[in-house]
Each structure stands twice: as C-alpha cells, then as structure tokens.
C-alpha cells in the first residue's frame, strides 16, 4: 500500500499525480492536465494534453477557441482509463454540465478529487455520485455554517412572483455565466415561465452550447437584438459585473436587480451590490452538504483545496477527522 500523499500532492504548478505524471485543474499551462469542469479557474487554456468530459471540452472550446490545448482526449463519465499505471475514472459531480469528480487508484489506495460539487438537484447536469475513498479532496467555497442554500425551485418561484408583481419594471438577473445562467433558465422554465429571456452578450455563447447539447431552455434571445420596448417588464440576464454597469442603464430608470448566488445568503452582500431581490441559489455544496458528503465517503483524510478551508478544517477536527488545507493557488474563492 502506498499512502496517497506519496503519489498525489500539491506541486508548484498545481495538484500533481506523480506516477501518472499529470496535474488536475492546474492554474498554469502543463504537459498533461485532467480537468474537472469548465469554470475558468479550473479549466485554463494552453495545456499540451487535456483529458476531460466531452461537455467540458466543448465548453473550453467555446470559451478559449478550438486550439486552446495541444490535443483533447475525452473521458466518458463512468469509464476507467489507465495512465502510466494509475487508474483514472471521471464521475458526475453535480456542479455544472460536464462536471466530474476524478477518481484515482494507485498502489491499493483510492483518492477522489471532487473539483466543485453540489448535492442539490440540477436539471442541467447529472447528479453527484458518491465514491467511497481513502482521501477525499474537497472544495470549501461555502464552508461556513451560515451557508445553507434555499431550494432552487422555490427561489425561482420568488423571481416569477416578483415579475408578476412588477409588470412595469425590467428584472435584471445577475448570474455566473457558465452553469448558473443555464440552470436558472431551466428552473424558471420548469416553473412555467415561458416568456422570452433576454441575454447579455457574455451569456449567449455558452447558453447556445447548452441548447446544442440537448438541454431545453426555451426562447432565449440576445438583449442586443431587443427594442427598448421589448425589455420593459421582461427578464434580462447578465453577468454579475454588469448588474450595476453602464450597460444596465438600458433597463429603464428602476430595474429590479436580482442576483442568484450562494453569497446572497448574507444580506450585507446583497446590499453592497445594490441587489433588491437576492436569490440564494448555488452550484456549490453548502455547509451541511459538505459535511455529509465528507462523512459518506468514509475518507480517512480530507484535503481542502479552496474557499473557507479554515472553518472546514476546524469543524472536521472537531469531528475527529484528519483534515488539512492544501492552500492551492489560483482558484477564485469568490466567483459564483
């Protein structure tokens, strides 16, 4: 038996599997990278060889161009590959379309690098699958006990109610462009909202990709093609940075600013951004989900990659588990 830390560890370029000679989600260009999902702090351009799920590869090509890596190899969810004697399997993480946990086995031990994940239902991606393991590598974006997300379907209904109550005002919904955007659209459609949804230019490409990959999002149109009258009382979606931006002035004098994010759990965050209707919808595990998942994996060691590692490591030590912060650089703790 070879303890996991002898063959999987943080190196200067990122989390490195030595016998396999590959990195997982490295923040800088490397020879061989395994990518858990398409968010930009996990999937960077410029690697020589990339192994990822087909959806993640498509996302990378939309974001960075078809030649953003030397070559791409697809990893179908559930299939096992062997790389230099290391067994590698991609398993659904429930985070966004194509997102995967990467299960590594070597020397009789198993490690799961979960990337970003959530346990709550999401109509745009396959649900998280639990894999028992010796070492579980987890994120900690919302690892404070104050973070308990709301049910996403009831938050979508709150938005629909607000649109019905304020027929004169444009609703401007700030969302993270990959994953949250398409999940919110799918949730709204599932709740019966069938009006056209207008998209800021930054959201158009990835939303079209989701639709091409067979996810039904209904009538979505670029906001740039709308007449001003079309936008009155309509739902317009944009990246969070555009909520307060000059672009938002097109939405009339007094749009209802909405933001869908796990951070909206905290009122100060909503007020700071001038958000009138905060929706607590997240694509990351909340505090109870993090703890439940860690316990269910049965892992002896828990490694925390990014986010509030201080709180999570402390809590796990109270629960009698070995936990440590990997202090990996390059991840965006705040993006959601």
């Amino acid at each position: 038996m070879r303890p996991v830390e002898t063959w999987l560890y943080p190196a200067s370029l990122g989390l490195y599997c030595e016998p396999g000679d590959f990195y997982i989600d490295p923040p800088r260009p490397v020879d061989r990278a395994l990518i858990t999902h398409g968010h930009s702090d996990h999937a960077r351009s410029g690697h020589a060889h990339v192994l990822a799920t087909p959806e993640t590869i498509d996302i990378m090509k939309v974001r960075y161009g078809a030649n953003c890596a030397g070559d791409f190899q697809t990893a179908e969810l559930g299939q096992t590959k062997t790389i230099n004697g290391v067994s590698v399997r991609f398993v659904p993480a429930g985070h966004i379309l194509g997102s995967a946990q990467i299960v590594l086995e070597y020397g009789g031990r198993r490690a799961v690098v979960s990337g970003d994940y959530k346990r709550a239902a999401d109509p745009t991606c396959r649900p998280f699958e639990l894999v028992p393991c010796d070492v579980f590598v987890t994120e900690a974006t919302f690892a404070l006990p104050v973070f308990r997300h709301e049910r996403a379907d009831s938050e979508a209904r709150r938005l629909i109610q607000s649109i019905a109550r304020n027929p004169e005002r444009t609703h401007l919904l700030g969302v993270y462009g990959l994953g949250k955007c398409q999940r919110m659209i799918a949730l709204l459609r599932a709740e019966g909202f069938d009006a056209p949804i207008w998209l800021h230019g930054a959201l158009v490409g990835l939303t079209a990709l989701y639709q091409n990959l067979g996810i039904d999002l209904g009538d979505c149109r670029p906001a740039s093609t709308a007449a001003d009258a079309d936008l009155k009382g309509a739902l317009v979606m944009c990246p969070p940075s555009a909520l307060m931006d000059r672009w938002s002035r097109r939405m009339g004098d007094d749009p209802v600013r909405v933001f869908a994010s796990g951070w909206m759990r905290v009122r100060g965050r909503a007020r700071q951004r001038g958000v009138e209707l905060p929706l607590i919808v997240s694509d990351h595990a909340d505090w109870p989900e993090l703890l439940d998942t860690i316990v269910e994996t049965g892992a002896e060691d828990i490694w925390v990659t990014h986010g509030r590692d201080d709180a999570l490591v402390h809590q796990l030590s109270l629960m009698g588990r070995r936990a440590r912060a990997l202090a990996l650089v390059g991840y965006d703790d705040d993006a959601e």
Partner: protein
Amino acid sequence: MRAFAETLDSLSTTQSRNGKLALLTAYLRAAPDPDRGWALAALTDGLPLRIAFRRILSDLMAARTDPVLFKLSRDFVGDTAETVALLWPTPADPVTPPRISEVVDWLLNAKPSEHAVIIASVLDRCSVRERWAFLKLVGGAPRVGVSARLAKTAVAEIGGQDVSAIEEVWHALKPPYTELFAWMEGSSERPDPGSVPVFRPLMLAHPVEDADWPSLDPLDFAAEWKWDGIRVQVSAKSGEVRVYSRTGDDISPAFPEIRSAFAHTDVVADGELLVVRENTVAPFNDLQQRLNRKSVTSKMLRESPAHLRLYDLLFAHGEDIRALSFEARRERLESWHAEDRPLLTDLSALVPFTTFAELEEYWRGAREAGIEGLMLKRRASPYLAGRPKGHWFKWKRAALTLDCVLMYAQRGSGKRSSLYSDLTFGVWRTRDGANERELVPVGKAYSGFTDVELRDLDRFIRANTTETFGPVRAVTPKLVLEVAFDAVQPSTRHKSGVAMRFPRIHRIRWDKPADEADTLDATLAMIDRPAA
C-alpha cells in the same frame, strides 16, 4: 410573523423611498391588530421591552455552536442578529411561527430570567427569514433603512391622510396603536390627545432664489436672523413639557432645563435651541454633544447650558392660533413671553428694514457676525405644516468655496445606482517637517452637478480607478472640484480634523491641475468663530 418577515426582508434590500413606502403600506393595511401596531412600534420608537439582548444571544449561541465557528461566521456576516438567525438549527418539520403579538405578550409578561427561554422557543418555530425578522423586531433598531417618519407616512396612506395628521397625535398614543389604525380605517374618531403635550408639525422655509425677488414686496415681509442651532418645538400642558425635534422626535430627556423653564406654561412654541455661554452662542458642535443623549450629566448642564430663542407661537393657553397671521402670532408671542417669563429663553429679534437693498447689507454681514443668514416671513401667512410655497424664505449667507481634489467615489442609490455620484474630496496637507504633501479628505457631496456632468464624472471615475472596495472606488487624484459649503467645523471623525457643512459641487474644474488645489491650512482658516 410570516408577513412581517417578508416585508422586513424586502425592505432591507429595497432602495427607493417609494418602493419602501409601498411595501410598508401594503403590510400595515393587511396585517391584523395588534400585530401591525407592534411592528409599527419596532420601526418608530422601539418596542417597550427591556431585554439584555446581546448577552442572551451570546449565551444561546455558546450552548449551540462552536465558538471558533461562531466568530468566523460573525466576522463574515458583520451583524450578530443575522448571524444567529443563519446559524440557528432549522427545524426538520415545517413550523408555524408565533404571531408578533404573542411574542410581545410573552416578553412583556416575563421575568428577565425567562427572556432567553422565550427567545429560543420562538427561534425554534421560525424559518431563517423569520428568525432574522424576529431578532430585528425585539433587538432594538432594525436598521432596514426605514425612518420613523416613513413608517408614519405609511400609516397615513391607509387613511388617505397627510403624515402631519399622524404626527399631531403620535405622542399621545402608545403601542400597539390600535386606535390609530381604527381612525385611519374610518371605524373610529381621531384619537384624543387628552392632556399629553403632542407635537405639531413645523412650518418650514424654502431657500430664496434669484427669480423670487422681483415678485416679493418688502412691505409684505418681516425679517429675522437665521440662528445656527437646532429647530425645536416646545409643547407644554398641565405641567408636562416635551421638546420635539423638527421631525417630531421627543428629545426632552436631553434638555431637562428647558422642560423646567416651561413647566408653568401652557403653550406650543417654535424656536431655535442653542448652547449659550455668557451671552455668546457656542459653536454648533457643543449642541451636538448634548443631542442624542438619554440623560445628561450635571457637568454637561453646567458647561453647555441650553437656551431657546423663540420664533413663533402655535398654541397660547390651549388656544390654537396657527390660523392667525404671522404678525398677530408675533404679538401673542411677545405678550405671552412678557407675562410668563420662562427662564433660558429670549425672542428672536425682528430685523428692521424697508428695502431689500437695506436687508442685503445685513445679509452681507451675516458671516462676519457668525450668523447663518436671514429668514423672510410673510406677515399675513398663517402657520402651515410642512414646506408651503411662497410664505417663508431662508436667505442663507453666501457660500464659501474651496478647490478640492476628488479622492473616492461611491455609487448612488435608487435611480443613481449605476452611477458614481457620491464624491469624497480632499485638500493638500504638508506633514510637519516634510516636503511631501498628501491629500486628506474634508468632505463628501452628492449634489450640485447636472445630469450631463454626472455622466462625465462617472466616466472619469471608471477610467481613473486605482482600487475598488465594494461599492467604493479610489480614484487617481487629478480632478479638481470647486466645492461650495456653508462652514468648516472641527471634527475628530475625519483624518483632516475638519468637516464641511452642507457641501455641494459648485463647478468641476477639468482645466485645473490638482497641484493647485487648496491646502488644509487654507481650510482651517475658515473655521467658524462663535456668534454674538
């Protein structure tokens, strides 16, 4: 509690006044008595509860959470009550929260030692938004951007009345204000204030504009000095005396000597509260020290004695004289004052003039004399609540100006929330013995520019941002703003040691190099001298 929680939740993130007012009115209309009255109390004068809130919360949390995790959470959230609401275990089964009136009854009738158990049992029955609203309800000021006046305005909307109608009875009412709602809904008469000396809404002035002068006849007007204190109303009846601020807040506890001075009178009087030492009006700052105090020390009474300079009389010996002309009321004011002779008071003198040119001479001397300006009051006008047009004018002394450098900008609110419209500016300070100069902030302004200028400023700010902290941007110090203001005062709150009163942007000096902006020494030289 559910409807209240939803309302408070929306209020906390709604920026526009009209939006807030609509939310409040809808809630107060729909909620039953006495719940809505307790909610109204929480948003105005506070619930009549004495709870050791902070200690109870920290005891409850100590028994339920790890101290390290609590501290990390509290630091992140920035508000203790909200942190508790978020951390409190959510019940597994659906729960029905108690009514506001039940909660208030329990707490009103409990011994202090029972408060913690009651609070815990209510939290156990609430969802996360309800827990937050409940803690804001019983924890004192909810701080959701709703002033007491806005809450009263929402009540008035129910009955299609003006807020002044509510203000006239407010201080004779007690929570849960059942008779107030009954009156607004037309099911009972206006509540009788009885022997309580209630607040009567003040009459306010408009600034006189250049365009006003040709239509004004000097013979129609009386002039008074505009004193630099706090406008108050003293309401006295049957030995009971209240001092009210301009907005109708009861500030009596801070000014016991004024209450004693009026104890033998039966009047409602309008005047300016000042601190006067040896016949000299002290700087506004000294008065500020006394305001917002629940009680005053004998040292403060001795060192900063209050004085009331009287402008007007609204009620004399129980008789409402507001419908009389200013001239007639002034006569009543003078004869009453000569008769009752309340201590610590004098009459604001009328400034004699026959032409506006003559008056302008006085106006020019106002700054030199340490006086804020002049008031023009139409001799024939009755005493009208609010800010009626064409009756009273304030003619403020000419503004001072300084060339300052833009340092920080913050997003505005409401319609201006996509624009950087709140501007912080500074002047140059030379550190002792150093050759280098640094900018120190001296004030903040959010008015004085046109819409076009505002857009230009916004563009400049976005293009010259050096750092961003939440809604605030630090800006490369290179744009000069000519700032107009009324006065400079010493301030311990600002790094520069000074604060400007009523600053606004007079001109944007796109042309002027920042190096040539004014210095802190020039600013200090403008600090007010006490008035005679």
